[in-house]
Protein backbone atom coordinates (compact mmCIF):
# COMPACT_ATOMS: atom_id res chain seq x y z
CA UNK A 1 0.00 0.00 0.00
CA UNK A 2 1.35 3.38 -0.90
CA UNK A 3 1.29 6.15 1.61
CA UNK A 4 -0.57 9.32 0.69
CA UNK A 5 -0.25 11.45 3.79
CA UNK A 6 2.16 11.26 6.67
CA UNK A 7 1.94 13.62 9.61
CA UNK A 8 5.10 13.73 11.68
CA UNK A 9 5.24 15.13 15.23
CA UNK A 10 2.83 17.93 14.42
CA UNK A 11 2.26 20.50 17.17
CA UNK A 12 -0.13 23.44 17.10
CA UNK A 13 -0.38 26.23 19.68
CA UNK A 14 -1.92 29.69 19.99
CA UNK A 15 0.46 32.26 18.54
CA UNK A 16 0.15 34.24 21.76
CA UNK A 17 1.10 31.27 23.95
CA UNK A 18 3.37 28.90 21.99
CA UNK A 19 4.00 26.77 25.07
CA UNK A 20 0.33 25.80 25.44
CA UNK A 21 0.11 23.00 22.87
CA UNK A 22 -3.38 22.33 21.52
CA UNK A 23 -2.07 19.55 19.34
CA UNK A 24 0.93 17.84 20.84
CA UNK A 25 3.43 15.98 18.65
CA UNK A 26 0.99 13.80 16.77
CA UNK A 27 2.09 11.42 14.04
CA UNK A 28 0.05 9.16 11.79
CA UNK A 29 -0.10 8.03 8.18
CA UNK A 30 -2.92 7.62 5.69
CA UNK A 31 -2.75 5.08 2.90
CA UNK A 32 -4.09 5.57 -0.62
CA UNK A 33 -7.69 4.48 -0.96
CA UNK A 34 -8.25 4.08 2.78
CA UNK A 35 -10.37 5.93 5.32
CA UNK A 36 -8.84 7.05 8.58
CA UNK A 37 -11.15 8.36 11.29
CA UNK A 38 -9.97 10.78 13.92
CA UNK A 39 -12.17 10.42 17.01
CA UNK A 40 -12.18 12.48 20.17
CA UNK A 41 -14.24 14.84 22.27
CA UNK A 42 -14.58 18.55 21.57
CA UNK A 43 -11.29 20.27 22.26
CA UNK A 44 -9.22 17.16 21.59
CA UNK A 45 -7.56 18.81 18.59
CA UNK A 46 -9.12 16.69 15.85
CA UNK A 47 -10.46 19.59 13.81
CA UNK A 48 -7.22 21.57 14.22
CA UNK A 49 -5.32 18.64 12.75
CA UNK A 50 -7.60 18.63 9.71
CA UNK A 51 -7.33 22.40 9.27
CA UNK A 52 -3.55 22.17 9.50
CA UNK A 53 -3.48 19.67 6.62
CA UNK A 54 -5.62 22.05 4.56
CA UNK A 55 -3.36 24.95 5.52
CA UNK A 56 -6.38 26.74 6.94
CA UNK A 57 -5.26 27.39 10.52
CA UNK A 58 -6.43 30.79 11.68
CA UNK A 59 -3.86 33.53 12.21
CA UNK A 60 -4.19 33.19 15.95
CA UNK A 61 -2.79 29.69 15.81
CA UNK A 62 0.61 28.58 14.72
CA UNK A 63 2.20 25.38 13.64
CA UNK A 64 4.93 25.02 16.24
CA UNK A 65 6.69 22.06 14.70
CA UNK A 66 6.20 18.99 12.57
CA UNK A 67 5.78 17.95 8.97
CA UNK A 68 2.76 17.20 6.83
CA UNK A 69 4.02 15.06 3.98
CA UNK A 70 1.51 14.78 1.19
CA UNK A 71 2.59 12.84 -1.90
CA UNK A 72 6.23 13.29 -0.86
CA UNK A 73 5.84 17.04 -0.52
CA UNK A 74 6.00 18.83 2.84
CA UNK A 75 2.94 21.07 2.99
CA UNK A 76 4.19 23.08 5.96
CA UNK A 77 6.93 24.59 3.82
CA UNK A 78 4.59 25.89 1.10
CA UNK A 79 3.52 29.50 0.71
CA UNK A 80 -0.09 30.57 0.23
CA UNK A 81 -0.01 30.47 -3.54
CA UNK A 82 1.48 26.98 -3.68
CA UNK A 83 -1.08 25.83 -1.10
CA UNK A 84 -3.91 27.26 -3.19
CA UNK A 85 -2.79 25.00 -6.05
CA UNK A 86 -3.32 21.96 -3.85
CA UNK A 87 -6.36 23.02 -1.87
CA UNK A 88 -9.60 22.13 -3.62
CA UNK A 89 -7.71 20.32 -6.35
CA UNK A 90 -5.75 17.54 -4.69
CA UNK A 91 -7.04 17.92 -1.14
CA UNK A 92 -10.67 18.91 -0.59
CA UNK A 93 -12.71 19.38 2.53
CA UNK A 94 -16.33 19.02 3.64
CA UNK A 95 -17.51 20.86 6.71
CA UNK A 96 -20.02 20.05 9.40
CA UNK A 97 -22.65 22.68 8.76
CA UNK A 98 -24.06 22.47 5.24
CA UNK A 99 -26.27 25.43 6.19
CA UNK A 100 -23.43 27.85 6.77
CA UNK A 101 -20.77 26.61 4.37
CA UNK A 102 -22.69 27.36 1.17
CA UNK A 103 -23.05 30.90 -0.14
CA UNK A 104 -26.77 31.78 0.03
CA UNK A 105 -26.75 34.22 -2.89
CA UNK A 106 -25.08 31.97 -5.46
CA UNK A 107 -26.78 29.09 -7.25
CA UNK A 108 -25.47 25.66 -6.35
CA UNK A 109 -24.40 25.09 -9.94
CA UNK A 110 -22.19 28.18 -9.79
CA UNK A 111 -20.67 27.06 -6.51
CA UNK A 112 -19.90 23.59 -7.80
CA UNK A 113 -18.43 25.10 -10.94
CA UNK A 114 -16.10 27.48 -9.12
CA UNK A 115 -13.28 25.00 -8.40
CA UNK A 116 -13.59 23.67 -11.96
CA UNK A 117 -13.03 27.12 -13.42
CA UNK A 118 -10.26 28.02 -10.98
CA UNK A 119 -8.27 24.81 -11.14
CA UNK A 120 -9.10 23.23 -14.49
CA UNK A 121 -10.08 26.27 -16.53
CA UNK A 122 -13.39 24.73 -17.60
CA UNK A 123 -16.03 27.04 -19.06
CA UNK A 124 -19.09 27.18 -21.27
CA UNK A 125 -20.78 23.94 -22.24
CA UNK A 126 -17.96 21.76 -20.88
CA UNK A 127 -18.44 23.34 -17.47
CA UNK A 128 -22.21 22.87 -17.59
CA UNK A 129 -21.88 19.23 -18.56
CA UNK A 130 -19.41 18.59 -15.76
CA UNK A 131 -21.65 20.30 -13.17
CA UNK A 132 -24.62 18.20 -14.29
CA UNK A 133 -22.48 15.09 -14.09
CA UNK A 134 -21.28 15.95 -10.57
CA UNK A 135 -24.81 16.61 -9.35
CA UNK A 136 -25.91 13.25 -10.69
CA UNK A 137 -22.99 11.55 -8.98
CA UNK A 138 -24.19 12.82 -5.61
CA UNK A 139 -27.82 11.95 -6.34
CA UNK A 140 -29.28 15.37 -7.14
CA UNK A 141 -31.17 15.87 -10.45
CA UNK A 142 -29.02 17.94 -12.82
CA UNK A 143 -31.78 20.51 -13.37
CA UNK A 144 -31.39 21.61 -9.75
CA UNK A 145 -28.15 23.40 -10.74
CA UNK A 146 -30.02 26.71 -10.81
CA UNK A 147 -31.45 26.26 -7.31
CA UNK A 148 -30.20 28.26 -4.35
CA UNK A 149 -29.11 26.69 -1.07
CA UNK A 150 -32.28 27.73 0.81
CA UNK A 151 -34.34 25.65 -1.62
CA UNK A 152 -32.57 22.46 -0.56
CA UNK A 153 -32.86 20.25 2.51
CA UNK A 154 -29.94 19.71 4.87
CA UNK A 155 -29.05 16.37 3.32
CA UNK A 156 -29.18 17.82 -0.20
CA UNK A 157 -26.95 20.72 0.84
CA UNK A 158 -24.41 18.28 2.19
CA UNK A 159 -24.61 16.45 -1.15
CA UNK A 160 -23.88 19.74 -2.90
CA UNK A 161 -20.87 20.23 -0.59
CA UNK A 162 -19.68 16.77 -1.56
CA UNK A 163 -20.15 17.53 -5.27
CA UNK A 164 -18.04 20.68 -4.81
CA UNK A 165 -15.33 18.82 -2.98
CA UNK A 166 -15.01 16.01 -5.53
CA UNK A 167 -15.24 18.40 -8.51
CA UNK A 168 -11.51 18.26 -9.25
CA UNK A 169 -11.24 14.59 -8.28
CA UNK A 170 -9.00 15.13 -5.27
CA UNK A 171 -6.84 12.29 -3.98
CA UNK A 172 -7.56 13.23 -0.37
CA UNK A 173 -10.94 14.21 1.03
CA UNK A 174 -11.11 15.64 4.52
CA UNK A 175 -14.54 15.43 6.12
CA UNK A 176 -15.05 17.27 9.40
CA UNK A 177 -18.15 15.80 11.07
CA UNK A 178 -20.06 15.88 7.78
CA UNK A 179 -23.12 14.08 9.14
CA UNK A 180 -23.39 15.41 12.68
CA UNK A 181 -26.10 17.93 11.78
CA UNK A 182 -28.16 15.43 9.78
CA UNK A 183 -30.99 13.04 10.55
CA UNK A 184 -29.97 9.45 11.11
CA UNK A 185 -31.49 8.13 7.86
CA UNK A 186 -29.91 10.96 5.85
CA UNK A 187 -26.63 10.32 7.66
CA UNK A 188 -26.70 6.70 6.53
CA UNK A 189 -27.26 7.82 2.90
CA UNK A 190 -24.42 10.35 3.02
CA UNK A 191 -22.00 7.85 4.54
CA UNK A 192 -22.88 5.36 1.83
CA UNK A 193 -22.39 8.00 -0.86
CA UNK A 194 -18.98 8.98 0.51
CA UNK A 195 -17.89 5.38 0.64
CA UNK A 196 -19.00 4.77 -2.97
CA UNK A 197 -17.25 7.91 -4.21
CA UNK A 198 -14.11 6.95 -2.35
CA UNK A 199 -13.96 3.65 -4.19
CA UNK A 200 -15.00 5.05 -7.57
CA UNK A 201 -12.51 7.92 -7.52
CA UNK A 202 -9.83 6.01 -5.59
CA UNK A 203 -9.75 8.74 -2.94
CA UNK A 204 -8.44 8.55 0.59
CA UNK A 205 -10.53 10.01 3.36
CA UNK A 206 -9.60 11.68 6.60
CA UNK A 207 -12.84 11.57 8.50
CA UNK A 208 -13.36 13.47 11.72
CA UNK A 209 -16.16 12.39 14.01
CA UNK A 210 -17.09 11.85 17.61
CA UNK A 211 -19.57 9.09 16.81
CA UNK A 212 -18.21 5.57 17.19
CA UNK A 213 -21.16 4.19 15.25
CA UNK A 214 -20.04 6.21 12.22
CA UNK A 215 -16.47 5.04 12.78
CA UNK A 216 -17.58 1.42 12.72
CA UNK A 217 -19.42 2.00 9.44
CA UNK A 218 -16.81 3.88 7.49
CA UNK A 219 -13.27 3.58 8.87
CA UNK A 220 -10.36 1.37 7.89
CA UNK A 221 -8.09 2.89 10.52
CA UNK A 222 -8.82 4.89 13.65
CA UNK A 223 -6.83 7.55 15.48
CA UNK A 224 -8.10 8.42 18.97
CA UNK A 225 -7.21 11.89 20.24
CA UNK A 226 -7.42 13.14 23.79
CA UNK A 227 -6.30 16.58 24.97
CA UNK A 228 -4.22 17.20 21.86
CA UNK A 229 -2.44 13.87 21.84
CA UNK A 230 -2.98 10.62 20.01
CA UNK A 231 -3.62 8.04 22.69
CA UNK A 232 -4.27 5.13 20.40
CA UNK A 233 -4.31 4.27 16.71
CA UNK A 234 -4.77 1.14 14.67
CA UNK A 235 -7.20 -0.74 12.49
CA UNK A 236 -10.89 -0.23 13.17
CA UNK A 237 -11.29 -3.78 14.46
CA UNK A 238 -8.33 -3.41 16.81
CA UNK A 239 -9.43 -0.07 18.27
CA UNK A 240 -13.16 -0.77 18.57
CA UNK A 241 -13.03 -4.39 19.65
CA UNK A 242 -9.73 -4.54 21.53
CA UNK A 243 -9.01 -1.01 22.80
CA UNK A 244 -5.71 -0.83 24.67
CA UNK A 245 -5.67 2.67 26.11
CA UNK A 246 -7.87 3.41 29.17
CA UNK A 247 -9.23 6.55 27.48
CA UNK A 248 -10.40 4.63 24.42
CA UNK A 249 -11.98 2.04 26.68
CA UNK A 250 -13.70 4.75 28.72
CA UNK A 251 -14.92 6.58 25.60
CA UNK A 252 -16.33 3.37 24.13
CA UNK A 253 -18.14 2.67 27.40
CA UNK A 254 -19.99 6.00 26.99
CA UNK A 255 -21.53 5.03 23.67
CA UNK A 256 -25.05 3.67 24.00
CA UNK A 257 -25.48 0.51 21.91
CA UNK A 258 -28.50 -0.05 19.72
CA UNK A 259 -29.40 -3.27 21.56
CA UNK A 260 -29.47 -1.58 24.97
CA UNK A 261 -27.59 -4.44 26.59
CA UNK A 262 -24.53 -2.54 27.74
CA UNK A 263 -24.81 -0.26 30.78
CA UNK A 264 -23.62 3.30 30.15
CA UNK A 265 -20.52 4.38 32.00
CA UNK A 266 -19.45 8.02 31.90
CA UNK A 267 -15.75 8.85 31.80
CA UNK A 268 -14.17 9.19 35.23
CA UNK A 269 -11.61 11.88 34.45
CA UNK A 270 -9.94 11.74 37.88
CA UNK A 271 -9.33 8.03 37.42
CA UNK A 272 -8.16 8.65 33.88
CA UNK A 273 -5.69 11.31 35.00
CA UNK A 274 -4.25 8.95 37.59
CA UNK A 275 -4.10 6.18 35.02
CA UNK A 276 -2.36 8.41 32.49
CA UNK A 277 0.23 9.51 35.03
CA UNK A 278 0.71 5.87 35.89
CA UNK A 279 1.26 5.04 32.23
CA UNK A 280 3.72 7.88 31.82
CA UNK A 281 5.77 6.82 34.85
Amino acid at each position, binding site marked *: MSELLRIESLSIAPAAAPERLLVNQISFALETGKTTCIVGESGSGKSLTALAVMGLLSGQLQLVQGKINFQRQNLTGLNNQQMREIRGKRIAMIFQEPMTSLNPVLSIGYQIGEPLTVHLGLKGQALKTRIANLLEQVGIPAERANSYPDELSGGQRQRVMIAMSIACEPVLLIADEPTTAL*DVTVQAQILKLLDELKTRLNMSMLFITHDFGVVADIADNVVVMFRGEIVESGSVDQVLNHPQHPYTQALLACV*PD*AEGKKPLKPIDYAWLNAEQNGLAA
Partner: protein
Amino acid sequence: MSAYILSAQHLNKSYIQRSGRFGFTTKQVKALDDVSIQLRAGATLAVVGESGSGKSTLARCLLQLQPLNSGAVQFQGRDLAVLSAAELRQQRRHLQMIFQDPFASLNPRMKIGAIVGEGLLIHKLGNALEQRQKVVQMLKRVCLSEADMEKYPHEFSGGQRQRIGIARALVLEPKVVVCDEPVSALDVSIQAQILLLLKELQQEMALSYLFISHDLRVVRHIADEVVVMHQGKVVEQGLVADIYANPTQAYTRNLINAIPGRQRAANPS
Protein backbone atom coordinates in the same frame (compact mmCIF):
# COMPACT_ATOMS: atom_id res chain seq x y z
CA MET B 1 -56.91 7.62 39.08
CA SER B 2 -55.52 6.08 35.97
CA ALA B 3 -51.96 4.86 35.62
CA TYR B 4 -51.35 7.53 33.01
CA ILE B 5 -50.12 10.84 34.36
CA LEU B 6 -50.29 12.59 31.01
CA SER B 7 -52.34 11.57 28.05
CA ALA B 8 -53.34 13.19 24.82
CA GLN B 9 -56.16 12.25 22.48
CA HIS B 10 -56.51 13.06 18.80
CA LEU B 11 -54.21 16.07 18.73
CA ASN B 12 -54.28 18.09 15.54
CA LYS B 13 -52.11 21.04 14.73
CA SER B 14 -51.40 22.60 11.37
CA TYR B 15 -49.30 25.50 10.23
CA ILE B 16 -49.77 27.75 7.25
CA GLN B 17 -46.66 27.64 5.15
CA ARG B 18 -46.11 30.52 2.79
CA SER B 19 -44.34 29.90 -0.46
CA GLY B 20 -44.05 31.27 -3.94
CA ARG B 21 -43.37 34.87 -4.84
CA PHE B 22 -43.78 37.17 -1.80
CA GLY B 23 -45.43 34.32 0.06
CA PHE B 24 -48.80 34.74 -1.65
CA THR B 25 -49.18 31.01 -2.12
CA THR B 26 -50.09 29.29 1.10
CA LYS B 27 -50.10 25.64 2.01
CA GLN B 28 -51.39 23.90 5.10
CA VAL B 29 -48.81 21.68 6.76
CA LYS B 30 -50.07 19.16 9.26
CA ALA B 31 -47.54 19.09 12.09
CA LEU B 32 -49.73 16.82 14.20
CA ASP B 33 -52.25 14.57 12.52
CA ASP B 34 -54.55 12.78 14.97
CA VAL B 35 -51.83 12.02 17.52
CA SER B 36 -52.70 10.17 20.73
CA ILE B 37 -50.14 9.23 23.36
CA GLN B 38 -50.08 8.12 26.98
CA LEU B 39 -47.33 8.61 29.51
CA ARG B 40 -47.35 6.24 32.46
CA ALA B 41 -46.46 7.69 35.88
CA GLY B 42 -42.78 7.17 36.67
CA ALA B 43 -41.95 5.93 33.18
CA THR B 44 -40.12 7.34 30.20
CA LEU B 45 -41.89 7.68 26.89
CA ALA B 46 -39.65 8.50 23.97
CA VAL B 47 -40.84 10.25 20.83
CA VAL B 48 -38.58 9.55 17.87
CA GLY B 49 -38.63 10.74 14.31
CA GLU B 50 -36.70 12.76 11.78
CA SER B 51 -36.69 16.53 11.62
CA GLY B 52 -40.06 17.75 10.53
CA SER B 53 -41.87 14.72 11.91
CA GLY B 54 -43.71 16.86 14.45
CA LYS B 55 -42.05 15.60 17.61
CA SER B 56 -41.11 19.02 18.97
CA THR B 57 -44.54 20.39 18.07
CA LEU B 58 -46.04 17.54 20.05
CA ALA B 59 -43.94 18.50 23.10
CA ARG B 60 -44.93 22.13 22.86
CA CYS B 61 -48.60 21.36 22.37
CA LEU B 62 -48.67 18.97 25.32
CA LEU B 63 -47.36 21.72 27.59
CA GLN B 64 -49.80 24.21 26.05
CA LEU B 65 -46.95 26.35 24.86
CA GLN B 66 -48.60 26.32 21.46
CA PRO B 67 -52.35 26.26 20.87
CA LEU B 68 -53.85 23.10 19.41
CA ASN B 69 -56.37 23.03 16.57
CA SER B 70 -58.20 20.21 18.26
CA GLY B 71 -57.68 17.42 20.75
CA ALA B 72 -57.46 17.05 24.51
CA VAL B 73 -54.51 16.84 26.87
CA GLN B 74 -55.14 15.31 30.27
CA PHE B 75 -52.71 15.86 33.11
CA GLN B 76 -53.60 14.01 36.29
CA GLY B 77 -57.13 13.70 35.01
CA ARG B 78 -57.61 17.40 34.20
CA ASP B 79 -57.95 18.74 30.69
CA LEU B 80 -55.24 21.36 30.26
CA ALA B 81 -56.84 22.91 27.20
CA VAL B 82 -59.84 24.27 29.11
CA LEU B 83 -57.89 25.79 32.00
CA SER B 84 -57.68 29.54 32.40
CA ALA B 85 -54.29 31.21 32.06
CA ALA B 86 -53.89 31.46 35.84
CA GLU B 87 -54.87 27.83 36.43
CA LEU B 88 -52.54 26.72 33.68
CA ARG B 89 -49.68 28.65 35.25
CA GLN B 90 -50.28 26.77 38.49
CA GLN B 91 -50.13 23.46 36.65
CA ARG B 92 -46.93 24.43 34.87
CA ARG B 93 -45.04 23.89 38.08
CA HIS B 94 -45.67 20.20 37.59
CA LEU B 95 -44.90 20.24 33.88
CA GLN B 96 -41.36 21.28 33.14
CA MET B 97 -39.15 21.20 30.10
CA ILE B 98 -35.46 20.62 29.44
CA PHE B 99 -34.30 22.15 26.16
CA GLN B 100 -31.94 20.99 23.49
CA ASP B 101 -29.50 23.82 23.20
CA PRO B 102 -27.88 24.66 26.52
CA PHE B 103 -26.35 27.72 24.87
CA ALA B 104 -29.61 29.28 23.76
CA SER B 105 -31.91 28.31 26.62
CA LEU B 106 -30.22 30.15 29.49
CA ASN B 107 -30.52 33.94 29.75
CA PRO B 108 -26.95 35.23 29.37
CA ARG B 109 -27.63 38.24 31.60
CA MET B 110 -28.90 36.28 34.58
CA LYS B 111 -26.79 34.62 37.21
CA ILE B 112 -27.21 30.89 37.68
CA GLY B 113 -28.79 31.36 41.10
CA ALA B 114 -31.47 33.60 39.59
CA ILE B 115 -32.06 31.29 36.63
CA VAL B 116 -32.57 28.23 38.79
CA GLY B 117 -34.52 30.14 41.44
CA GLU B 118 -36.85 31.99 39.08
CA GLY B 119 -39.48 29.27 39.04
CA LEU B 120 -39.61 29.18 42.84
CA LEU B 121 -40.07 32.95 42.85
CA ILE B 122 -42.86 32.86 40.28
CA HIS B 123 -44.72 30.07 42.02
CA LYS B 124 -44.07 31.68 45.44
CA LEU B 125 -42.67 28.49 46.91
CA GLY B 126 -41.15 29.26 50.31
CA ASN B 127 -39.44 32.41 51.57
CA ALA B 128 -36.18 33.78 50.22
CA LEU B 129 -34.03 31.67 52.51
CA GLU B 130 -35.87 28.46 51.72
CA GLN B 131 -35.70 29.22 48.03
CA ARG B 132 -31.97 29.75 48.24
CA GLN B 133 -31.54 26.50 50.13
CA LYS B 134 -33.53 24.66 47.50
CA VAL B 135 -31.47 26.12 44.69
CA VAL B 136 -28.21 25.21 46.42
CA GLN B 137 -29.44 21.71 47.09
CA MET B 138 -30.53 21.25 43.50
CA LEU B 139 -27.27 22.62 42.09
CA LYS B 140 -25.31 20.25 44.32
CA ARG B 141 -27.46 17.37 43.15
CA VAL B 142 -26.46 18.06 39.55
CA CYS B 143 -22.79 18.27 40.60
CA LEU B 144 -22.48 22.05 40.63
CA SER B 145 -21.57 24.10 43.70
CA GLU B 146 -23.05 26.89 45.77
CA ALA B 147 -20.38 29.25 44.43
CA ASP B 148 -21.74 28.69 40.90
CA MET B 149 -24.89 30.65 41.85
CA GLU B 150 -22.99 33.89 41.35
CA LYS B 151 -21.72 32.98 37.88
CA TYR B 152 -23.17 33.65 34.44
CA PRO B 153 -24.02 31.00 31.81
CA HIS B 154 -21.02 31.82 29.59
CA GLU B 155 -18.68 30.65 32.32
CA PHE B 156 -19.86 27.06 31.92
CA SER B 157 -19.25 24.29 29.41
CA GLY B 158 -22.07 22.73 27.37
CA GLY B 159 -22.46 19.80 29.74
CA GLN B 160 -22.53 22.06 32.79
CA ARG B 161 -25.11 24.30 31.16
CA GLN B 162 -27.30 21.30 30.48
CA ARG B 163 -27.00 20.47 34.21
CA ILE B 164 -28.14 24.01 34.98
CA GLY B 165 -31.10 23.50 32.64
CA ILE B 166 -31.95 20.29 34.49
CA ALA B 167 -31.65 22.01 37.88
CA ARG B 168 -33.89 24.84 36.64
CA ALA B 169 -36.59 22.38 35.60
CA LEU B 170 -36.37 20.05 38.59
CA VAL B 171 -36.09 22.56 41.44
CA LEU B 172 -39.87 22.93 41.20
CA GLU B 173 -40.28 19.22 41.88
CA PRO B 174 -42.36 18.65 38.76
CA LYS B 175 -44.23 15.47 37.96
CA VAL B 176 -43.72 15.43 34.21
CA VAL B 177 -40.57 16.60 32.48
CA VAL B 178 -40.43 17.02 28.72
CA CYS B 179 -36.87 16.59 27.52
CA ASP B 180 -36.48 17.96 23.98
CA GLU B 181 -33.28 16.41 22.58
CA PRO B 182 -31.44 17.07 25.85
CA VAL B 183 -28.20 15.36 24.86
CA SER B 184 -27.96 15.78 21.10
CA ALA B 185 -25.72 18.87 21.34
CA LEU B 186 -23.28 17.16 23.71
CA ASP B 187 -20.14 15.06 23.35
CA VAL B 188 -20.69 11.35 23.80
CA SER B 189 -18.87 11.28 27.16
CA ILE B 190 -20.96 14.19 28.49
CA GLN B 191 -24.06 12.61 26.98
CA ALA B 192 -23.53 9.49 29.08
CA GLN B 193 -23.18 11.59 32.25
CA ILE B 194 -26.38 13.52 31.57
CA LEU B 195 -28.36 10.39 30.67
CA LEU B 196 -27.32 8.69 33.89
CA LEU B 197 -28.12 11.83 35.88
CA LEU B 198 -31.58 11.97 34.32
CA LYS B 199 -32.16 8.32 35.18
CA GLU B 200 -31.04 8.79 38.80
CA LEU B 201 -33.21 11.87 39.23
CA GLN B 202 -36.18 10.00 37.81
CA GLN B 203 -35.80 7.40 40.56
CA GLU B 204 -35.25 9.92 43.34
CA MET B 205 -38.01 12.35 42.41
CA ALA B 206 -40.53 9.93 40.85
CA LEU B 207 -40.47 11.82 37.56
CA SER B 208 -42.18 10.87 34.34
CA TYR B 209 -40.24 11.79 31.22
CA LEU B 210 -41.39 12.55 27.74
CA PHE B 211 -38.10 12.16 25.92
CA ILE B 212 -37.79 13.58 22.43
CA SER B 213 -34.87 12.35 20.42
CA HIS B 214 -33.71 11.39 16.97
CA ASP B 215 -30.95 9.17 18.33
CA LEU B 216 -32.30 5.66 18.60
CA ARG B 217 -29.30 4.46 20.57
CA VAL B 218 -30.03 6.98 23.32
CA VAL B 219 -33.73 6.13 23.27
CA ARG B 220 -32.97 2.44 23.66
CA HIS B 221 -31.16 3.28 26.88
CA ILE B 222 -33.46 5.73 28.55
CA ALA B 223 -36.98 4.89 27.46
CA ASP B 224 -39.53 2.29 28.53
CA GLU B 225 -41.91 2.97 25.70
CA VAL B 226 -41.49 4.63 22.36
CA VAL B 227 -43.65 6.48 19.85
CA VAL B 228 -42.37 6.68 16.28
CA MET B 229 -43.55 9.75 14.38
CA HIS B 230 -43.43 10.47 10.67
CA GLN B 231 -44.94 13.49 8.94
CA GLY B 232 -47.11 14.38 11.90
CA LYS B 233 -48.54 10.90 12.36
CA VAL B 234 -47.77 8.22 14.89
CA VAL B 235 -46.66 5.25 12.81
CA GLU B 236 -45.87 2.85 15.60
CA GLN B 237 -45.82 2.75 19.38
CA GLY B 238 -45.07 0.23 22.08
CA LEU B 239 -42.41 -1.06 24.45
CA VAL B 240 -38.88 -0.12 23.44
CA ALA B 241 -37.58 -3.68 23.54
CA ASP B 242 -40.43 -4.94 21.32
CA ILE B 243 -40.16 -2.21 18.74
CA TYR B 244 -36.39 -2.51 18.41
CA ALA B 245 -36.60 -6.28 18.14
CA ASN B 246 -39.64 -6.47 15.85
CA PRO B 247 -40.52 -3.22 14.12
CA THR B 248 -43.76 -3.80 12.24
CA GLN B 249 -43.68 -0.67 10.07
CA ALA B 250 -41.30 -0.13 7.17
CA TYR B 251 -40.56 3.39 8.37
CA THR B 252 -39.46 2.18 11.80
CA ARG B 253 -37.32 -0.53 10.21
CA ASN B 254 -35.63 2.14 8.09
CA LEU B 255 -34.87 4.24 11.14
CA ILE B 256 -33.43 1.29 13.03
CA ASN B 257 -31.35 0.16 10.07
CA ALA B 258 -29.90 3.65 9.78
CA ILE B 259 -28.37 3.53 13.27
CA PRO B 260 -24.66 3.84 12.54
CA GLY B 261 -22.40 0.97 13.53
CA ARG B 262 -25.06 -1.72 13.42
CA GLN B 263 -23.61 -3.84 10.66
CA ARG B 264 -20.34 -4.24 12.46
CA ALA B 265 -22.11 -4.93 15.75
CA ALA B 266 -24.12 -7.66 14.04
CA ASN B 267 -21.13 -9.40 12.49
CA PRO B 268 -17.82 -8.24 13.98
CA SER B 269 -15.01 -8.73 11.50
